[in-house]
């Protein structure tokens, strides 16, 4: 589940950085992108948690992602 957070944050930051590179407005769009990415990541994580909970006990399988950062690489 941690993957959701990492991926969304990196995606937001990455897109912001690309836009910055194109427009030459460096830190600002990257910053905005990271903030929006974090928001999107939290949203996806919450949504996933809700779905897994609904799926019943099998939901504990979301598992691995929570432990160590190994899946976030």
């Amino acid at each position, binding site marked *: 589940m941690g993957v*959701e957070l990492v991926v969304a944050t990196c995606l937001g930051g990455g897109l912001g950085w690309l836009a910055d590179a194109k427009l030459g407005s460096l830190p600002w769009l990257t910053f905005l992108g990271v903030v929006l990415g974090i928001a*999107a990541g939290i*949203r*996806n994580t919450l949504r*996933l948690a809700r779905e897994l909970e609904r*799926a019943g006990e099998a939901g504990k399988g979301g598992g691995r992602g929570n432990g160590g950062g190994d899946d976030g690489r």
Partner: protein
Amino acid sequence: MESPLHHFELHRLVDLHLFGLDLSINQGVVTMWLAVAAVFTLFAVAAAKRETVPGMVQNVAEIGVEFIRDMAEDNIGPNGHRYVPFLIALFLFVLFLNMWGLLPGQFTVTSQLIVTATLALAVYAISLGVGFFKHGIGFLRILVPGGTPGWLIPLMIPVEILSQLARPLSLSVRLFANMTAGHTILAVLFGMALSLPLWAGWLPFGLTVLINALELFIAFIQAYIFVMLSCVYFGDAENLAH
């Protein structure tokens, strides 16, 4: 000592260049053929007799189909059964590849990001296709979750666009990272077991046994999560209620 990442390397078995594309056959491609053949054979054998009291193979196939069908109906809704053939093929394909990678000396195809990304993009493309086909341009309402106060909408739309874009990415990275991490741990522990003297080597070797059991579980769970999330995405496209 061999690098613990050595077993993720692809080796060309047959050089093949067609239409300016590098279509060389490597061990990953062969393993995927094997997976397709195994899944196909399972169902060909299971469906050959169609007994009322199922034999062993038919029983396994039926358990698999029912498992996926229940998941699809729970998450997608009344139209869930339409997705079952795709979902079960996806589930068994990923499960076989995950499990196959645990056999000593075999290649883990799902540790290749390009493979998991292709699967995830296929899933996401289908969910977008279904969404736009069913709801037309109104499918864009998925970007504004129900119950959003009006003043939040300009903020919510970019957040939702990002969260949508992150879906296929996280779907592919999750499977890829879990497989890569697990197999790297196993390789490191095996390397330690082999390079240490006997009085110390038994400890990492014992750990490989335990981690192998854990990896078997993860191989199943990750296949399950992959298909489960596919169901959730299809469900969002079908129902548009969120």
